[in-house]
């Protein structure tokens, strides 16, 4: 006697596998609902629940009214209405979201996408009597649940997912029960305790998964792959001020008051470490400045010399100057004594990103020094304070230029950075620090940076920063005069040395045929990026009077020399430029397990910034190996670039283009043959499959061939009748095997695999492509 399938759950739910499928659909819905942000509006939840309950009735009623019978659905009659309803059903969350967003509600994009998939799964569940719909629904539901499990660490979601997996396992047991049995009935099937075996295996699998999950810990379940969730997150829906984009998003995002301290940073090894100043960081990255020399006349007394040396040292160490002539590597004592961790601060949010911590305006060919720039002092935006959701936000009040669009959200957790300057993104718009609600705590420092009225920002301070994104296309469209407004001579002056003329000539040659404006800036930076090499260790010697000249002659150097050269070239071209220093966080700095990026002295970087409209500083990147700071493009702009690139490639590669065209044309012309060949390869590859699978694949292969050559088998004609029209001498082996396998339950498994294989091969060879094509031509003629 054959063991019966486990139908306990089906009996409870209505003695049908479809009932189990419906239970699976409802559980998947529950998993997603639990995954959604807790503050999802109740009316939205109610609407979706109503939708889930009402949709089956509506769909089935619609089909009954149109076709008059559900049997056609059952038989797989995929009418246009069937497909249109499926599309409408799937897209309904998107439509709802458009409406909700108009009302300032709505979910993040990921949740909307999940809901769309879930709806499609539910649609398939409702129509689960249609062939394969159950499998599709099961696959979609499982994908959604799996995704949610990887994107959360909520135990309630895990519990619901566990219930889902139990139900799904049961459904699979019911659905694929026959496959668990031996292939041939000749074996003593009763000797195998199939039911018990399946039950034990199920428990074993579940336990194993559970043990692995516990051993791996919850942290392993919240790994976000780079760019896996390309949009939003946050807790307030799509419009959340805390929401942010890109790498490290999602549930790991700790925002606002929740982000006082995170993880291991509370341990002593971080807190008690010596806090490095920016000077230490620069020294760690590029080594210390060379010994003080020069700028002395022989007439000066020793005490004056000593005094001068002391002042210069003090200026360097306090960060007021930045020397472009530095020692070679490993010649100084490291200032960062805490070698357990180099982390200066953590960053959560989209990377790559750069944080400005300092800037310099005057350059004498050797040292960069800060200066009271007129532009800096006259056009500083006012700092206002606004309260959002009970949190105080400090917002810069300035007129938004056309090229700034959208928001970027980052969170910085200061660990050991000894600096009063707020690490700020290039186009900072607003910032928030927990419990800080006085705007006079912040000020503009002389170098036009926002800093705190204190010596340093305290360790463990969490700063939320919102900044604008600059659009490259809009920037290119800006009138060149905007870069020359409120001209400040300090920002365009060049050091007087032997190379100043050479620099001017170089700048002229680089910009003479280029449209004024941002294109010229790009031309200069592109030249530096493509013609010079980043050599971190290289540095001019002590005797060097002109570091830029040395850089141009040497063909490369460290990043601060790239930046310095770029500043000189840009100033020569007439653009008001300054030198900014700070940290560039790259994609490689993102630590998936922590869900954030770690910033160390290695991230220290120097770059030029160009003044726009007197109050905005646009970063440019002349150093190779660093991503462009202005990289934001809209979808259509990207599409346009792609199109132009494609057209350019076609024009520049005529031979290759012709080859691609010819091969594509051939592929199109011979599409029937290569599709048929591909299917035949698949059929060959799965020769080891079960006899029933083999027969099904053979039938599908021949049906596909018939379809490709214009004689598709009508759905109401049995395979023997239709295949027989093509070849009157077809043998009966395949059809006998097929009929026995498909329509005879009692002797289905008796068919030997070898017999099935021979029958399949025979019919595939008999109904060859040539024969089918000939028949198709005859019929169409």
């Amino acid at each position, binding site marked *: 006697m054959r063991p019966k*399938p486990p139908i306990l759950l089906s009996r409870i739910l209505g003695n049908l*596998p479809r009932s189990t499928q419906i239970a699976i659909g409802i559980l998947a819905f529950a998993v997603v609902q639990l995954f959604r942000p807790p503050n999802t509006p109740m009316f939205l939840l109610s609407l979706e629940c109503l939708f889930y309950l009402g949709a089956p009735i509506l769909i089935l009623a619609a089909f009954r009214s149109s076709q*008059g*019978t559900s*049997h*056609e659905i*059952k*038989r*797989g*009659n995929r009418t246009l209405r069937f497909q249109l309803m499926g599309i409408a059903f799937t897209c309904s969350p998107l439509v709802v979201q458009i409406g909700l967003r108009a009302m300032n509600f709505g979910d993040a994009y990921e949740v909307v996408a999940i809901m769309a998939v879930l709806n499609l799964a539910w649609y398939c569940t409702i129509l689960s009597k249609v*062939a394969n719909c*159950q499998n599709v629904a099961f696959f979609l539901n499982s994908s959604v649940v799996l995704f949610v499990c990887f994107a959360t660490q909520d135990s309630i979601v895990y519990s619901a997912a566990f219930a889902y997996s139990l139900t799904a396992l049961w459904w699979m047991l*019911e*659905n694929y*029960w026959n496959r668990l049995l031996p292939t041939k009935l000749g074996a003593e099937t009763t000797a195998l305790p199939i039911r018990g075996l399946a039950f034990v295996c199920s428990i074993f699998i579940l336990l194993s998964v559970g043990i692995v999950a516990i051993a791996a810990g919850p942290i392993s379940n919240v790994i976000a792959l780079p760019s896996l969730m390309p949009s939003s997150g946050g807790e307030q829906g799509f419009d959340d001020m805390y929401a942010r984009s890109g790498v490290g998003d999602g549930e790991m995002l700790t925002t606002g008051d929740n982000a006082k301290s995170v993880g291991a940073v509370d341990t002593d090894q971080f807190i008690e470490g010596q806090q490095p100043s920016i000077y230490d960081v620069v020294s760690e990255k590029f080594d210390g400045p060379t010994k003080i020399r020069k700028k002395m006349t022989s007439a000066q007394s020793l005490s004056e010399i000593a005094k001068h040396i002391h002042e210069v040292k003090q200026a360097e160490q306090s960060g007021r100057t930045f020397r472009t002539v530095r020692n070679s590597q490993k010649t100084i004592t490291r200032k960062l004594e805490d070698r357990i961790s180099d982390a200066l601060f953590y960053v959560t949010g989209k990377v790559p990103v750069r944080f400005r911590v300092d800037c310099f305006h005057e350059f004498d060919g050797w040292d960069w020094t800060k200066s009271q720039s007129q532009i800096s002092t006259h056009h500083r935006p006012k700092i206002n304070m606004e309260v959002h959701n009970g949190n105080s936000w400090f917002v810069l009040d300035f007129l938004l230029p056309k090229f700034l669009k959208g928001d970027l959200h980052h969170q910085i957790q200061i660990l050991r950075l000894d600096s009063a300057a707020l690490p700020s993104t290039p186009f900072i718009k607003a910032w928030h620090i927990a419990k800080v609600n006085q705007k006079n705590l912040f000020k503009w420092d002389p170098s036009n940076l926002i800093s705190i009225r204190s010596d340093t920002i305290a360790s463990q301070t969490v700063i939320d920063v919102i900044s604008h994104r600059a659009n490259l296309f809009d920037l290119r469209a800006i009138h060149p005069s905007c870069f020359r407004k409120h001209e400040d001579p300090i920002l365009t002056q060049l050091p007087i040395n032997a190379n100043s003329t050479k620099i001017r000539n170089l700048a002229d040659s680089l910009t003479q045929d280029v449209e004024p404006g941002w294109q010229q800036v790009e031309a200069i930076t592109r030249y530096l990026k493509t013609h010079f090499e980043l050599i971190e260790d290289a540095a001019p010697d002590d005797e060097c009077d002109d570091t830029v000249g040395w850089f141009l002659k040497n063909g490369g150097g460290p990043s601060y020399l790239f930046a310095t050269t770029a500043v000189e070239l840009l100033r020569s071209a007439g653009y008001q430029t300054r030198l900014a220093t700070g940290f560039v966080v790259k994609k490689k700095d993102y630590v998936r397990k922590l869900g954030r990026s770690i910033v160390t002295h290695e991230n220290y970087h120097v770059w030029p910034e160009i003044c726009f409209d007197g109050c905005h500083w646009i970063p440019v990147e002349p150093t190779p190996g660093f991503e462009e700071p202005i990289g934001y493009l809209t979808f259509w702009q990207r599409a346009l670039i792609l199109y132009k690139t494609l057209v350019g490639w076609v024009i520049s590669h005529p031979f290759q283009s012709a080859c691609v065209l010819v091969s594509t044309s051939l592929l199109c012309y011979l599409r029937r043959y290569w599709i048929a060949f591909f299917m035949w390869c698949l059929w060959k590859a799965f020769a080891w499959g079960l006899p029933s699978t083999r027969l*099904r694949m053979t*039938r599908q292969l021949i049906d596909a061939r018939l379809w490709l050559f214009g004689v598709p088998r*009508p*759905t*109401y*004609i*049995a*395979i*023997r*009748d239709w295949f027989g029209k093509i070849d009157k001498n077809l043998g009966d082996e395949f059809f006998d095997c097929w*009929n*026995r396998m*498909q*329509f*005879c*339950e*009692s*002797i289905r498994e008796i068919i030997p695999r070898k017999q099935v294989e021979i029958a399949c091969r025979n019919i595939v060879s008999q109904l060859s492509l040539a024969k089918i094509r000939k028949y198709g031509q005859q019929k169409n003629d």
Partner: protein
Amino acid sequence: MIDTSSTADISTVGPKLSSLRKQLNEVLIGKSDVVEMIITCLIANGHLLFDDLPGLGKTTVAKALAQSMGGRFSRVQCTPDLLPTDITGFNILDQETQTFEFQKGPVFSDFLLADEINRATPRTQSALFEAMAERQVTVDNRTIPLPDSFMVIATQNPVESHGAYPLPEAQLDRFAMKLNIGYPQRSDEIMMLGNSVGNQTDTSPVYPVLDLKDLKSIQAAVANVEVCEAVRGYLVDLGAATRQHPEVELGLSPRGLLLWLRVAQAWASLDNRSYVIPEDVQAMFFPVLRVRVAGQQPATDAILQEIIESVPVPNERMQK
């Protein structure tokens, strides 16, 4: 309940029926497909209606079928003055015993040939309702069972309308299938004429070649032929399609579905198969549906073709 103790093996069905097939083919020359249908109806234990023009051999083949079996055979020539009691029988007073004695009518036989059935009045036609559906006859509150192998073979002439009464739907629904014989081919007619030369009768002599016991065992074997869920679903879908077709007034009844299932089983067994495939269902579609699909206009084969084309044939068994 099917008595499986006397069930024949499917593989023996063909040989047992070969003599019958041969004899009927000799009687109805060149109509082997019709003969197969007749045998199918016989082993499916259904009633058969021949509907065709005069002189095509309806009565001859019906008579030959009945005579080929070893059972009792009765014939009723239906006329407008035929009474129900002429078919079922009646009670007469026995003068000696002064009691009523039931005189059995022609219905009490194994095979009843109702010739020109549409010439009987509806009242008389109705006398066969109970006999055909339940295989019993009730007269004067007395129910008398008929033999298990009871089969009605009726003929009707669709052309003549004078003095004819169309069979009611309820009556039609009791027939398993309706067969059209059609004109024979030229060569078959030449052969038929050749056979008649030198013979006093027009047809070949017919002898009993299958006894009722064998027939019963074959019918039991047919009932045991396996029908999987996919094929059952296909049958139901086709039945539903007849009810949904706008030009069909009265679709297939559940009784019709059951009869269709049985003839499909019989057709499968004639092919030496112990299971039914969709092709069996399709093969029986026209004979079974012609008899019972009634519409505003005559249920033509075109309508039936539309119906069969509206339902996809199951390619694979339904997943449980």
